[in-house]
């Protein structure tokens, strides 16, 4: 007995700081590189800074959706909803996905409303990944996939994509990364940060590799509505891919509802059931006011959405032309609201470039290296900002480049 106590005390005394209490997985995931840059930008407290670093729409949520939420609050709709989300919202999402992307899901068993697309990604990875499983992540990419895989004991495997391929994932690159432990492939197209899209023809060979290697795909299609030259093709709509794919999407980007945290996941009923279990224990349900606003967006909000997309497209053309005019090569982003110009010609690293651009020319853009492999040599510039600000920013970047040359 005494020995036991001594042993326990022994263990305690080995812990010298609070970090020692942390689970090793939590300790091992790196802090977000974007956060570091955020601190640099906020520290300057300079109101003349134009930020192209914002990953969200510059539109406020259309009044129609806000009004629906306000009205429901007045009526006292403040309760939990069913775990999977309000049935009428799931019905509406099912109709929407069918109309827009030829996807057919049973709203009762194949769909789950989540707290943002982020929760859906977390649930999907937690439901699928076991210690040692490899999660294939085409990069440069949105940040959370790798850290969340690590938290589940998985091993994230970055697959570099290249400007020469318009940052598309190719079957060869995918094949080269596959090992016997490969289990999950993440697809995030239209892509944050590159603006790349994958067409039906691009996805077909990927589907073949997925099938051959018995992979499961988490397809993050949050930017699905934001494509400008062709309609988005959902990976789940490819032959044989529906049951191998968890489609993740949400209202943040296309419907300008970032702060509401409204997302959803669709997939095979067994996968959704597993995700629903985790969702029940962790968040119960997505907030009802967000669900009400999302329902309004689904049922009466398409016109507002089209108007916003048209406006992004105009600004996209302006920004891509602008970068080319000032001598920064920029592949044509066909989706999302980011341009990803190449800054290699300046001889600076993306971090040096972004820091100096911020300090010397008061323009904030996110250095490409934070988005993983293949991001170095580029900067991410969001064009979800007013035309006047974009034009001013382009002029400042042009002057900055002239100073460097």
């Amino acid at each position, binding site marked *: 007995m005494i020995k036991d106590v001594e042993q326990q005390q022994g263990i305690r005394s080995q812990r010298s700081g609070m970090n020692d209490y942390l689970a090793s997985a939590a300790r091992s995931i790196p802090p977000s590189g974007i956060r570091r840059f955020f601190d640099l930008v906020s520290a300057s407290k300079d109101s003349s800074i134009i930020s192209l*670093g914002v990953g969200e729409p510059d539109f406020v949520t259309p009044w129609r959706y806000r009004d629906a939420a306000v009205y429901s609050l007045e009526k006292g709709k403040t309760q939990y909803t069913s775990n999977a989300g309000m049935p009428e919202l799931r019905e509406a999402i099912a109709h929407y996905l069918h109309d827009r992307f030829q996807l057919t899901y049973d709203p009762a068993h194949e769909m789950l409303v989540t707290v943002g697309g982020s929760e859906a990604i977390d649930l999907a990875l937690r439901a699928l990944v076991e210690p040692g499983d490899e999660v294939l992540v085409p990069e440069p990419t949105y940040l959370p996939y790798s850290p969340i895989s690590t938290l589940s004991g998985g091993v994230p495997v970055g697959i570099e994509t290249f400007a020469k391929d318009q940052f598309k994932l190719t079957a060869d690159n995918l094949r080269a990364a596959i090992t016997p432990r490969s289990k999950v492939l993440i697809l995030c197209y239209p892509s*944050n940060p590159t603006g790349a899209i994958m067409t039906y023809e691009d996805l077909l060979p990927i589907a073949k590799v997925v099938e051959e290697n018995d992979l499961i795909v988490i397809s993050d299609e949050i930017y699905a509505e934001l494509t400008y030259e062709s309609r988005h093709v959902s990976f789940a709509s490819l032959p044989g891919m529906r049951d191998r794919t968890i489609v993740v999407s949400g209202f943040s980007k296309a419907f300008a509802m970032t702060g509401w945290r409204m997302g959803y996941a669709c997939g095979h009923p067994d996968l959704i059931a597993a995700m629903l279990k985790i969702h029940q224990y962790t968040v119960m349900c997505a907030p009802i006011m967000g669900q009400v606003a999302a329902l309004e967006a689904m049922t009466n909000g398409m016109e507002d959405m089209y108007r916003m997309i048209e406006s992004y497209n105009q600004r996209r*053309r302006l920004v891509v032309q602008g970068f080319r005019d000032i001598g920064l090569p920029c592949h044509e982003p066909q989706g999302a609201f980011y341009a990803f110009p190449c800054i290699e010609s300046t001889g600076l690293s993306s971090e040096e470039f972004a820091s100096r651009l911020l300090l010397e020319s008061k323009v904030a853009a*996110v250095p490409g290296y934070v988005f993983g492999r293949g991001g170095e040599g580029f900067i991410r510039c969001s064009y979800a900002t007013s035309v006047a600000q974009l034009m001013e920013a382009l002029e400042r970047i042009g002057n900055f480049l002239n100073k460097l040359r």
Partner: protein
Amino acid sequence: MNELQTKILDLLKEDARLSSATIATMLGAEEAEVSSAIEEMERDHVIVKYAAVVNWSKVDEDKVTALIEVECSPERGHGFESIAERIYLYPEVKSVYLMSGAYDLCVEIDGKNLKEVASFVSNKLSTIESVISTKTFFILKKYKQDGIIFEEFEDDHRLLISP
């Protein structure tokens, strides 16, 4: 009105100072095409004028605006056209609309003060022969005009950098 012209109007109505080159880039069109579409719309008086939207309450100048409901009897052969013309030719009249409903013309007028507006109504407007009656409503505050909200508020609450 073709699709390009409609899109140009949508952009110009938000910012009349956009150059043809910028508009062309934004719409994925040729600059010459945009310039000639704008010229055509100017010639046809589709685009009547490029003017600033001013929030006059910020200008240190006394100014009142009133909306006047005017009931009048139409003239044979001319309807309301010649009465409307008699009214809109006054420089203090900013706008004149023919209305459906309880009255006929809605007249918006600017004056330095209440007295000036009152004097216009009693001396000029009411004395026009076919004018039967007028009701004057003074505008106390403008919140929104031509789709533009005047209230000052921080319209970008976003974090400067987000993933």
